[in-house]
């Protein structure tokens, strides 16, 4: 098959297609979004005829939908960003106990450095927690190959397998060589409900089975082609002294996981002592290989993209750790992304010579709402209303509108996780605070706002929820909201908000005064109300129009 230049995300998608998946589910989230987009486009073009590739309301429903496919013997892929796995954690943890039938692969894209996220949690902890294997690609080719391997492993071990990506790989493009595609599995429901119904009596048996599989997983890691040992002697044996990892005599041991491998290789030629480099691309950790490198070297530098998971495991308690360096002792930065520069410093090498130039202080250019964004108008009427009150609370949520915490808006006071705006507002109101408002987007509302709203209805909480409805999942590039905007009022009414307290307004400058009046009225009400502030996202309009235009020209301009 010919080479194709693919993003890391797309390489996972193609690997899954060629592994014969029948289903793919996910929720958009940077940096994972492009996995599903690639699959959906392929399905639409008819390249994967029998493939169901769909966005779900949230990561939990996505995981459960994929479990349904696995139950029936079909291979399924689930995609999400790292914090999405928190939402899916319940089915994810329990899936490890199931007798996975059709291969199930969970592709999770982490965001070290928080380019577009509220934390930089390391999903490998979840794989470790669930006691399932995790494969971590360092190149687009590995992303493709590992995804195919992950499906084989999932069926061989009857457990879900995780593929852990990070932003730089997800969003970087390189040519990959694809292999012969495999056919999809036939429909074949799991034969024994004892493997799928986790009532306590059977769950205990399943948990013992999972523990029993650990030895096999460990053996697979020990022999995995993704766990490699490379001997290096950049200086041909002559030993000098440098600083940090480069000081010391004898052989340096290096353990990398994830993209740390690439950054090490970028700089390895400049080391001036021989080294042994163990790269771990597959967990559980290859204990024998780690023990070998620990025993055979005179210093061990552990560099991981993410949290110091392997390093903590190696250090243990009571062991002499004086020869181990990494994130725990500050040799490698504890937070943020690794890159060729900080890895170079961790290796004890001086910076590369660069252009001798000082541009002086430059003003930062942070991301901001697009000019004319409907959220601007929503924030304006909320801000001015709040200014007229003695005190107020404005909770908010995850989406473009989180940018409203910054000047010139400075409206939301909290941004925590998907859906938290509504439930936190309820908590604040019930703690006794007056004038509590929650600002949440339409897609975030469907993702995790519904249940919080039911809580508000049940307890008649004095909160005013403002759904900023731009009719799209804007932040991640304009995916479709699960249900069309026009249905929001009926959904809200169906959850029990009284009709007269569901107010639909336009997020327009000309309606500013009117919208302030409506917000004031609802704040005065002693129970829950919902204001839906509607105007389509500018990017969504642009995308829609260009799609319509393309469609029009494809049909010979008949429209």
């Amino acid at each position, binding site marked *: 098959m010919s080479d194709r*230049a693919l993003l890391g995300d797309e390489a996972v998608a193609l690997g899954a297609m060629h592994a014969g998946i029948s289903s793919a589910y996910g929720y958009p989230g940077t940096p994972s979004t492009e996995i599903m987009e690639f699959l959906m486009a392929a399905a639409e073009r008819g390249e994967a005829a029998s493939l169901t590739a769909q966005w779900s309301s949230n990561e939990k429903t996505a995981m459960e939908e994929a479990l349904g496919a696995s139950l029936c013997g079909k291979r399924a892929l689930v995609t999400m960003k790292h914090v999405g796995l928190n939402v899916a954690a319940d089915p994810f943890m329990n899936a490890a106990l199931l007798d996975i039938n059709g291969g199930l692969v969970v592709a999770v894209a982490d965001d070290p450095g928080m380019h577009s996220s509220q934390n930089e949690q390391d999903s490998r902890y979840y794989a470790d927690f669930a006691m399932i294997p995790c494969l971590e690609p360092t190149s687009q080719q590995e992303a493709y190959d590992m995804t195919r391997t992950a499906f084989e492993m999932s069926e061989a071990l009857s457990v879900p397998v995780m593929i852990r990506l990070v932003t730089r790989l997800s969003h970087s493009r390189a040519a990959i060589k694809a292999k012969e595609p495999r056919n999809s599995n036939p429909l074949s429901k799991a034969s024994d409900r004892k493997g799928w119904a986790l009532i306590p009596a059977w769950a205990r048996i399943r948990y013992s089975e999972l523990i029993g599989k650990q030895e096999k997983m460990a053996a697979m890691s020990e022999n995995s082609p993704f766990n490699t040992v490379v001997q290096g002697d950049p200086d041909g044996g002559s030993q000098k002294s440098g600083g940090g990892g480069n000081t010391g005599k004898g052989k340096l041991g290096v353990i990398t996981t994830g993209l740390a491998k690439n*950054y090490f290789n970028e700089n390895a030629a400049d080391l001036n002592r021989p080294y042994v480099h163990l790269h771990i691309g597959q967990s559980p950790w290859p204990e024998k290989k780690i023990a070998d490198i620990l025993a055979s070297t005179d210093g061990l530098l552990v560099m991981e993209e993410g949290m110091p998971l392997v390093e903590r495991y190696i250090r243990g308690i009571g062991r002499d750790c004086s020869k181990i360096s990494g994130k725990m002792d500050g040799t490698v930065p504890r937070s943020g992304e690794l890159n*060729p520069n900080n890895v170079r410093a961790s290796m004890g090498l001086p910076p590369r010579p660069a*252009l001798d130039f000082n*541009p002086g202080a430059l*003003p930062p250019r942070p991301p901001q709402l697009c000019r004319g964004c409907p959220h601007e108008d929503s924030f304006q009427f909320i801000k001015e209303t709040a200014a007229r009150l003695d005190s107020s609370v404005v909770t908010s949520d995850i989406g473009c509108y989180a940018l409203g915490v910054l000047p010139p808006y400075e409206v939301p006071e909290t941004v925590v996780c998907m859906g938290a705006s509504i439930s936190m507002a309820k908590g604040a109101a019930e703690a006794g605070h007056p004038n509590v408002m929650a600002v949440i987007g339409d897609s975030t509302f469907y993702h995790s706002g519904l249940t919080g709203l039911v809580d508000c209805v049940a307890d008649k909480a004095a909160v005013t929820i403002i759904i900023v409805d731009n009719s799209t999942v804007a*932040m991640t*590039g304009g995916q479709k909201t699960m249900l069309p905007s026009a249905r929001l009022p009926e959904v809200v009414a169906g959850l029990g908000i009284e009709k007269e307290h569901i107010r639909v307004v336009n997020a327009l400058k000309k309606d500013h005064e009117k919208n302030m009046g409506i917000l004031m009225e609802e704040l005065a009400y002693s129970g829950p109300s919902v204001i839906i502030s509607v105007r389509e996202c500018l990017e969504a309009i642009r995308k829609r129009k260009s799609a319509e235009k393309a469609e029009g020209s494809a049909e010979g301009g008949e429209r």
Partner: protein
Amino acid sequence: MKYDIILCGVGGQGVLSVAAAIAAAAASEGLEVRQSEVHGMAQRGGAVMSHLRLSDEVIPGDLVPQGGADMILSMEPLEALRYTAYLKPEGTCVTASAPFVNIPNYPDLDELLAKVESIPSSRVVDAEKAAKDAGNRRGVNMVMVGAASTHLPLPEKALESAISDLFARKGEDVVNPNIAAFRAGREA
């Protein structure tokens, strides 16, 4: 041969198309290519930066190291200066001259341009004018590909056919003005 480029600008300025054109041309020449992109929150009107690596050997990773870039190619002068730590001592900085002002404290333009020009190997291109003269006001990013092309280790023909392929889906009426913008950039 190894050639590392830092591409930069402001979200929405078409940095991705510039990277895509150069990457495709390099791939057609049989080079290995790595091209990083920016998606999500970071691209909303903020500073964006993309790493593009071309080599006839194995490329270890997706990121250009500081002190490793042969070129900074910027759509905008303030952004050109933001990444100078990435340039090799002999590296080249190519930037469009027109500022993209979406922050209240944008520096004085003449001072910015003077700073860019104080880099030993630098080139400031009036890309808006070149695009306009070529009859394609929206072709500023392809002008910048043209301006960079005289430094790149890639034949002109490979870049032109990459640009044709990039816009082929939209028809000849889009392809030709972009080729014109590219040629204007070479002359600029």
